[in-house]
């Protein structure tokens, strides 16, 4: 297994410890960005970006079911944007145990980060990445 985005995702070695995303917080203005970048896009300060662990949870901003998949993906699948409590609004896929059906996700619901292969296809099944699932009990299977 390879991690698709090793610079953006931390998978703790200790079993049970929750994974998280890696972003940057600007020492000058405090804004948090994801993915990381060396110059703060909010205030323009160069070289003041500290690595921060973010995104263990988030709130669903928008979602849609895509019925057509690019190469290496399987349709139908959810595509979503997540508002992280630290600030960024990011694109993500949804954990594959979550059934791809209307009504399963609702904008505004709490989500949590999981790590799994980006897609269950021959091209992508060895690439680990982050996805989100509903945070409620049993939410990884919705």
């Amino acid at each position: 297994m390879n991690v698709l985005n090793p610079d953006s995702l931390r998978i703790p070695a200790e079993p049970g410890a929750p994974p998280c995303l890696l972003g940057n917080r600007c020492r000058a203005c405090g804004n948090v960005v994801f993915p990381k970048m060396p110059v703060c896009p909010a205030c323009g300060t160069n070289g003041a970006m500290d690595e921060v662990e973010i995104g263990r949870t988030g709130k669903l901003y928008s979602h849609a079911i895509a019925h057509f998949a690019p190469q290496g993906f399987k349709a139908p699948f959810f595509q979503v944007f997540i508002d992280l409590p630290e600030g960024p609004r990011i694109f993500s896929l949804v954990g594959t145990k979550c059934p791809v059906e209307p009504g399963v996700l609702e904008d505004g619901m709490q989500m949590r980060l999981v790590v799994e292969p980006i897609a269950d296809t021959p091209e992508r099944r060895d690439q680990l990445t982050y996805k989100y699932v509903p945070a409620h009990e049993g939410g990884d299977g919705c």
Partner: protein
Amino acid sequence: MREVAIIGVGAHATGRFRNKPLKALAYPAIWDALGDAGVKVADVNVAYVGNSLGGSLTGQEGVRGQVILQHSGITGIPIVNVENACASAATALRGAWLEVAAGAADVALAVGVEKMDVGDNTRTIGALSGVSELDLSESGMQFTTSYAIHPKINLKARMQEYGWTAADFAKPAVKNSRNGALNPLAQHRKPLTIDEVVQSRVIVDPLTLLMCSSISDGAAAAVVCAADVAKRFTSKTPISIAACVLQSGVYRLVGDQRPDSATATAYEAYEKAGIGPEDLEAIELHDAMAPAELMLYERLGLCVPGEGPRLIDEHVTTLDGRMPVNPSGGLCSRGHPVGATGLLQICELVWQMRGEAGQLQIAKRPKVTMAQNQGGLLVGQDSAVYACTILKS
């Protein structure tokens, strides 16, 4: 800056031309534009060639412009390759305009060409995903999805916010299909009904197949020239480039209060051209997914938020209206060969302004028009490229 005019345009039909490579698609567009302008190859001082997907889809990773133009007999002069996603052709036009405006050239050629039908739709969709920042495309994000739920576009949320129905959503596709039906260069020439559009296959909820632009090949070209030498080549009405504005997306944190980038680009163009949106008499805009036209009405200042469907209901933006939008049929009917689209828009507007648009001719020949083109997506929650060109006659 010198006054710059478009003195000739040409286009290849849009559609699927499996066995035609890029250079074969571009050749008739280039020579039609030269012929239309009365310009000989030897008169062309510089050329800008827009193309987006040719590297990944055809394997010709570099020097596509030189390959394409050599095939058409244009060699030796400076040739600049332009890749700017779905706005590659508008960006090529800006390069040509700038050369002439700055006095570096008297005659410049802008070409846009795209080859999307390579016999494998999945590969084409993959290549299209690659014109968004890799962090997005590698994660599985697609353009269709971005129109549905991306924070800057989010047509799904607009539907809820304004109470737009599925039928409202289908209106631009229906309007533009009627225009496309009259356009001999269009990819799709069947007039559609609201029911057909709403009931076609869902691609990404709430977007259906007939609301989406399709895989297409095509090419377009324009010859631009210093206004004071235009008469040397042609007696046709020169079409002035009153503004040719290019902006790039900005990184937007959640809650960003700056104007939308499509709005900022359009208003910079209005200011440079000394007009307001109410002065426009024809518009070609970037409806890669048809309902985006409703949102662009707002962003270009053509109506207040939420009023988009009314502009169609009340025949403001139909071909018989005061301000026809996408008279060519737009991206969904005329077609969206991505790296050619910006110049296909320009071709249509020039034909309209000269009274040469055939069955598509707007009854009151437009004198002030605008082409709006955009492309790509960045992680900073904006499109990558925004372009607006205002023409006057």
